[in-house]
Structure formats: C-alpha cells, structure tokens
C-alpha cells in the first residue's frame, strides 16, 4: 500500500475500537462506554491532525492511500480527502464522540453491543466520505446500514421495528439500483478503454465523464439511479417518509447521527458522484430536482408546524433544511453550492444539538409531547437558554452559522433562478414560525401541570450533557462569525464540481436518443 495511512487510520481506528470493546466483559458496561469514547476521541484527534496538515491551496485529493484489491476488475482500496470530504469527516468524528458521550446515561441496556454498533457505524460513515473507488464507496455505503438498523431496532422506541425495517428497505432499494448504475458505468468505461484498470476509480471516471463518455440515454438512466439512492438518503420529497419514523423511534444519539451525518451522505453523494459523473443528465434533471427541493422546503416546514411531538417536529425541519441543500446543489452556481455545503455542516451541528436537547428533556419526562411542556424557563433556565440558542441558530439568526448557509444558497440561487429564490426565502418565515412557536410553548409561560408533577425529577442540564452541547454551540458561533473556515476548505471542491457541469447543456430529454 502506498500513502501516509492517515485517512486509513481515521477510518479504521473505530473498527479497532469496536473489536476491543467487543471483548469487554458484559458485566462492565462502564469499560465499554469509556473505551468507546476513547476510540471515538482518538479518531477525532486524527481527523483534526488531518485538518491541520491539509494544504488548502493544492487542488485534488490529499493523503491518498492506495492498494490493489480486486485487480481483475481494477478495483482498488483507494481513500483520500479533499476539502469537502475533510469537512464532513471532521463533522462525523465530532458528532460521533458527542453521541457516544450523550449515550452514557440513556443507554443502560446491552451497552457493549450498542457501543460496538456505534463504532462500526463510524467506520462506514467515514469510509463513504473518503472512498475514491466506486466499489469501495458502495461497500462503505452499505456498511452504514447494518449498525443503524440495529441501533434503531434494539435501542429505539415503542414502534422501533416498523421504523427500522422501513429505513432499511427504503435505503436498500435506492442503493441496489445505484449498484447496477455503478457497474454499468464501470463497464462503459471498460468497453471504451479496453481495460478494467481504473474502471472504478472516481478520478478516472470523472475525467472520462467530462469528455462526455456517460452522456445520452445511458447517463440519463444512470443518473436517475444514483439520484434515487442519494435522494432517499437526503431525504428529498417524496422519498422522505422513512425519516420521521426512523427519527422518532431512534435513541437520541441515533437521531443525532442520523440527522448529523447520514443525511449528509446523500448530499455528499450528489456533489461527489451524481453531478460530476453525469453532468449532462444532471443539467437535464435539474429543473425537476429544483421543484422537488422547493416542495421539500415548503412541505417540511408546513408539516413541522403541526407536529405534536418534539422529535417529529425536528425531523420534519430536517426535510425542510435539507431542501436548501439540494436546491443549492442543483442551481449549479458557486455561492449556492458553497452555501449548500455550509448548510450541510450547520444542519449537522444545529439539528444534532436539537435532538440532544429533545433527548435531555425526554430523559427526565419520558415524554416528548409539546402540549404537555411549558414554562421550562422557570425551572430549568440553562436548558431553556440552550434550546433558545439552537432554535435561533436553526431559524437563521445572523451571527450564527445557520444564517450564512441559507443566505449564500439563496444569494446564489437568486442569480440564476429568481423564482426559486423567492419561493425559498418566503418559506424561511414558516421556519421561524414552527421553531419559535415550539420554543414559546416549551420554554415560556407558567410551568405546566405535567412538569409540576415531576417534582424534583425535573433537573437542569447536567455537566455531561453540557459537555455534549457546548462544543456544538461553540462551532455554531464560530462558523457564524467566520464561515471562511469551511468555505475556504471546500472552495476547490466546489469549483471542481461546477467545472464539470456548468458548461454542459441539458438535452431535451435523453430517452429518445
């Protein structure tokens, strides 16, 4: 194998952790918790080291590790990062250790298995962001599915089995069709070049795609398969129906990772694979996708408005917020795409924090019904303040990170598609509506009878809980004031993705050709 091994280290360190934790005696759940946290922190440190060593001015991928895997088909073990990958890897490692820490108290049942699952999940997620070979990417993509399936299904709420099977089936339909598209793409490359060497290599395929290799009907269909897989993951309207169920039933940390990282796999896949590999088809499909994004933004917000359950409200807000991401990607404009990427990071941080906060109140009340809450500000001021902070961040208060992402997306969209921008901006009022209304009902006013009945059980945020929230809050402020931290990193990736697609004209409708 050639390469520094740094990316492989950050990817497989959690796997080592999973193996180690698996050998902890079942009677010592505390060992499992601490070991898992230690490995997650170690992976986080390695990812930060990568961030420090990353050359922001160089183009292309860095820290590439490469080895032959299945030479007969030119399939390689090839991993590396560019700015976009790196940002999402750091987001993953950060949210993973926070989630593990946040699971210390809520998870008391089969702790060891839980931690093993979480660490395996991290391997899959990191792997998707760093894989430079389509086969390898697919392996990691599917690897994510199994631990998440178990996390929701074993440690989830009352309706967990329905939710987890729905989650798996939805995802699997999309990804298996993507597998066919991956194979067809690689084969098209092989047929044109007469060799399997490099037929699964992302860089090679992207270059070939720029030369028009995957245009026409083939590209139209293959893009459709890729898009379906990623759209289900994002999730875009109308493929979103698994999300509210999965979120509601998942344990708190599962929801955090689901919203924080798993949805980003979809956005990342669109930027990294679907658009650069099939630029012509992307242009062709773009109008329809923009309309779907707008529907998602509006629909998510309206449905969130009427949710009686805190977790479902946050889940539907995800549909709305992720609509901005797909909108920003498919207007093919520099600022919009930058905004979309920033929005992915922000959504990960803010929605992650909101799910943590729902988890905090659920720990104490074993209830998430908004109607039963009220007046939390008087009894748990720190909690109410934290909730207020992240709600405002989610609404898009200037100075906090949520604002910059949405603003950039809208700014970029306005330059190429004014109608879409106007509609999307209008919807931000709804977002303010459902979130602030929720805040008002939960935090302000008199303490509700239900909460009064809890007596001393209703305590404020504990130090451990604060430790999970403070880093996210700090990042929200820092990125709000200085979004350049992310934008400078992803600049190269954005230009690269746009260069592939901007100068390609859409075809009338590819099927006839």
């Amino acid at each position, binding site marked *: 194998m050639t390469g520094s091994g740094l990316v492989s280290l950050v990817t497989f360190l959690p796997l080592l952790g999973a193996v180690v934790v698996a050998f902890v005696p079942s009677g010592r759940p505390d060992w499992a918790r601490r070991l898992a946290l230690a490995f997650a922190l170690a992976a986080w440190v390695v990812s930060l080291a990568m961030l420090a060593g990353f050359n922001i001015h160089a183009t292309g991928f860095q820290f590439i590790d490469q080895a032959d895997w*299945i*030479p*007969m*088909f030119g399939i390689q073990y090839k991993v590396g990062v560019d700015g976009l990958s790196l940002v999402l890897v750091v987001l993953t490692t950060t949210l993973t250790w926070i989630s593990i820490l946040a699971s210390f108290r809520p998870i008391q049942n089969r702790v060891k*298995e839980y931690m093993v699952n979480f660490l395996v999940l991290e391997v899959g997620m990191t792997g998707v962001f760093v894989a430079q070979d389509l086969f390898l990417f*697919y*392996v990691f993509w*599917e*690897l994510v*599915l*199994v631990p998440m*399936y*178990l996390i929701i*299904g*074993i440690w989830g709420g009352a309706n*967990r*089995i329905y939710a*987890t*099977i729905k989650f*798996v*089936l939805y995802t*699997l*339909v999309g990804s*298996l*069709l993507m*597998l*066919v598209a991956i*194979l*067809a793409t690689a*084969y098209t490359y092989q047929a044109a070049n007469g060799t399997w060497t490099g037929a699964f290599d992302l860089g090679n395929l992207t270059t070939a795609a720029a030369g028009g290799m995957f245009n026409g009907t083939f590209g139209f269909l293959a893009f459709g398969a890729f898009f379906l897989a990623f759209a289900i993951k994002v999730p875009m309207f109308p493929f979103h129906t698994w999300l509210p169920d999965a979120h509601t039933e998942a344990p708190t940390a599962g929801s955090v990772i689901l919203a924080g990282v798993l949805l980003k796999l979809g956005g990342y896949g669109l930027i990294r694979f679907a658009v650069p590999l099939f630029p012509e088809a992307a242009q062709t499909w773009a109008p329809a996708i923009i309309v779907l994004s707008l529907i998602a933004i509006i629909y998510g917000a309206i449905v969130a408005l009427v949710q009686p359950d805190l977790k479902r409200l946050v889940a539907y807000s995800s549909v709305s917020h992720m609509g901005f991401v797909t909108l920003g990607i498919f207007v093919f404009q520099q600022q919009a795409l930058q905004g979309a990427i920033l929005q992915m990071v922000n959504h990960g941080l803010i929605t992650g924090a909101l799910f943590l906060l729902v988890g905090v109140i659920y720990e104490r009340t074993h209830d998430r019904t908004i109607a039963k809450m009220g007046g939390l500000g008087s009894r748990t001021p720190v909690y109410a303040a934290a909730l207020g902070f992240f709600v405002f961040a989610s609404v898009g208060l200037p100075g906090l990170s949520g604002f910059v992402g949405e603003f950039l997306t809208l700014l970029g969209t306005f330059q190429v598609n004014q109608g879409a921008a106007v509609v999307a901006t209008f919807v931000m009022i709804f977002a303010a509506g459902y979130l602030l209304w929720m805040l008002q009902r939960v935090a302000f006013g008199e303490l509700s009878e239900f909460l009064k009945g809890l007596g001393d059980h209703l305590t404020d945020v504990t130090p451990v809980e604060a430790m999970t929230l403070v880093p996210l809050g700090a990042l929200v402020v820092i990125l709000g004031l200085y979004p350049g931290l992310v934008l400078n990193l992803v600049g190269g990736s954005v230009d690269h993705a746009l260069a592939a697609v901007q100068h390609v004209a859409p075809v009338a409708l590819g099927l006839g050709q």
Partner: protein
Amino acid sequence: MNVPASDLAAIAPFAAAILVAAAILVVDFAFPGRKGPALAVAFAGLAVTAALVAIVGQTRTTAFDGAYLVDPLTTFLDLLFLSIVALTIAFAPDYLDERDLPVAEFAAVLVFAMSGAMLISGSGDLLVLFLGLELMVLPGYVLAGYHKSDGYSTEGAIKYFLLGSFSSAIFLFGLVFVWGSTGTTNIAAVAGALTQTLNAGALSPGLGMGLAFLTTGVAFKIAAVPFHYWTPDAYQGSPTPVTGYLSVGPKVGAFALIIRLFAGALIPLAADWNIMIMVLAALTMTLGNLVALTQDNVKRMLAYSSIAHTGYMLVGFAAFGAGQIRGLEGVLYYGAAYSFMNLGAFAVVAALQKRLGTSSNLSTFAGLIRREPTLALLMTLFMLSLTGIPPTAGFFGKFYVILAAVQAGGWLSALAVLAVVNAAAAAFYYLRVVVYMWMRDPATEAPVLTHGRLVWAGLAVATVMTIALGLLPGVMLDIVGKAAAAVG
C-alpha cells in the same frame, strides 16, 4: 476388455468417492451403533478424494472415448461438491443422534449422491450426464425421507420422488430427440452436428421439441418457477441438515448439468434457449421472493428464497447465453458463495432444532442473541450475506452476476434491474430473522443447548468462506475464470 491406464486415472476421484461410500458402510457394519469410526472414514475418504481431484485436475484429459473428461470446470465443481458434502456430514450428527437416526448410513448415502454430481461435472457424453443425474438425485429421495417415522418427511420424500422421476423422464425424452437429430450422444459431436444443421437452415421441429423437453427437465431439477412446486414441501419435511444439503447440493449439480448440456452440447442453439432461460430467471426470482415474504417458518422461507437464488444464478447463465463468458463465471461464483452461506444458515437452524420438537418457526429465533450469542451472530452474518450486503460472499456473487448481465446489455440490463429490486425485497424476510434474534424477547425460556465440535468446525468453515469470498474474491475469481474458460 482393454481399458487404458490413463482412463482409469482420469476417473480415479469418481471411483474413490464410490469406494468411500462403500467403506463407510463396511465400517458401520464392523462397528455397529458407533458413529465415530464411520465419520472418521468419511472425512478421511473425502480428504483423499479431494487430493485426487486436485492431482488429476492438473492436466486436461478425456477418457473412455470422450465420454468422461477432466477440465478445470470438473475440478472446480468436484471440489465444491466435496465441500458441500463434508459440511453437511459435519452438521448432521447432532441433529440425527437426538432423533435416533443412523449417522453412518446418512454419510454413505450422501457420498453416493456426491459421486453422481461428480459424474455430471465430468461428463462428455449425454448418457453419462443422465447417469450422473440419476445417481445424484436417487440418494436425495432417500435422504428426504430419512426421518421415516415423521409424516412430513415421508410426504416430502414422496413428492420429491414423484416429480423428480417425472422430470427425469421428460429430460431423457429430450435427450432422445437430440440424439435422433444429431445421431450422436457425445457432447462435442452434438455441438458440431448442431452447428452444421443450423448452417443448413432453421431449427427442425424435432430439435425444438427436444430443447423444450430438456429445458423443462432441468427447470424441475433446479426448481425454477413454474416447475418448483415440489420444493417447499420436500424442503420443509426433510430433516433440517438434509434440507440444507438439498438446497445446495442438487442445485449446484443441476447447474453443472445445465452448463455441460447447454453451454457444451447445445451452445449453437443459444439464441433459441436463451429466451427461455431469461423468462425462467425473471419468473423464478420474482415468484420465489414474493412467496418467501409471507413465510413464518424459517425453513420454508429459506426454501422459497433458494428458489429466488436459483433465479439470480439463471440471470448469470442468461448473460452467458448472450455471449458473456463472465456470466458463466458469475454462475460458478454464485454457486460457491450460495453453498457456503446457505449451508451455514441451515446449520444454525439445525443446531437450534437439535432438541426434539423444536419448530423452525420464527419464534424459535426470538431473543437468540441472549441465549446463544455466537449462533445468533453467525446467523446474522449468513442472513446479511444472503441479502447481499457487502462485504460478504453473497454480495460479491450478486455483483458478479449483475455485472455480467449489464455487460450483455439489452433485455439483460432489465433483468439486472429486476434482480436488484428482488434483492431489496428479499432483505425484508432475511432481516426479519435478524429482528427476531436481536430485537424480540423469547416467549418461553428455552434451555441453552450444547453443540458438538463438528458443528462448530463446520460453522467456522462456512463463516470463513462467507467472509473471504466477499472480502478477498481474487483467488476464487481466478479459479472460476479458468473453469468457465474450459467450456466457453
């Protein structure tokens, strides 16, 4: 009669297999009621046979005037049959002992069946092919009815026997037509004669009839829809280790027959039979899956899902029929992958059913992860592999078959899409087992069972192969590549 020594050398593995079966019976006679010596002879004999297969397989030869041949395909299939039989013998004793069924006879019958499969894989003549087929399936009927005091076992065996004999007759009838049209039964000569016939004009009605009968016959043997009705009853009624064997052994054997017959003798007619294969593939995987979705009994579910897997393999064979040698490689790879993961899954079911009267219903699996964590973990692996989740053998098998179909293009691309949609549907019923094992609490507290060393050793082999064929497919790719090249 004067038989050259080289001919005898070529059939040495086949002869060895028969001798092993006979030796097991003799040892059982010498040590009645003791399974140890018989098992020792069985495993030692299988090891010797495997060594002979490897040695003889070094050079390509034909023997007995071309009636028997040794090529890389023969070697690959023989080794696969040996593995299947060895694993089945390893999984069986625990289950059979508990039901007072003799182990030695079981092993002997199984090895006889294996010798039939070996004859198929090495046949260069249509008559030898038929002999091998009968030698393979007759012991299968015996095995299906092995639990003779159990009504279901007997019922399954009778159904299996009746439909099996019926389909053998149909198959033989088809062979007669081919023989009548070409005047020879030698596979290579048949292919040559067919090429000439085709050059002279269109397909004669007699040959068309023959093709229809042959396809129907083999469709019965591989349990392709709509010729699958015998499968669920035969599978559910048989003792569980037998079901495991029946779902892979005769299936791989029948695919060996298909390869020798269609890819060898009938390849000039590929354009004619491939349409039938494609329709069969589409029906088989879709219907197998749809019915498997509704099963609450794991054994029956695995039976129907085995029909679906036949469909996936047929997709690979259809790709071969369309001119992609990769399709044949895919069939062989899938056959190997499916054998190990499915035998593993059935071994877990058998291990759980060790206690008399334990059903193979889903409820038996409830809460298994607490009772028997190792078995539950392995079953999870096999279920994920059968679903086709990477990095497991089942995933790479599907990958290969679908790649071949995509390469062939045209209607086969549509078949590839149908295959993956089916795979997604299959996830539902495979993961249901995982749900029961991990996420449900047992209705009653079943005692923890102890399992014999042979079971664990067999499970270890199945597990290692399930992971290795998924993670490091390189070695096997080489082997199936050579094997497929021998006929393609």
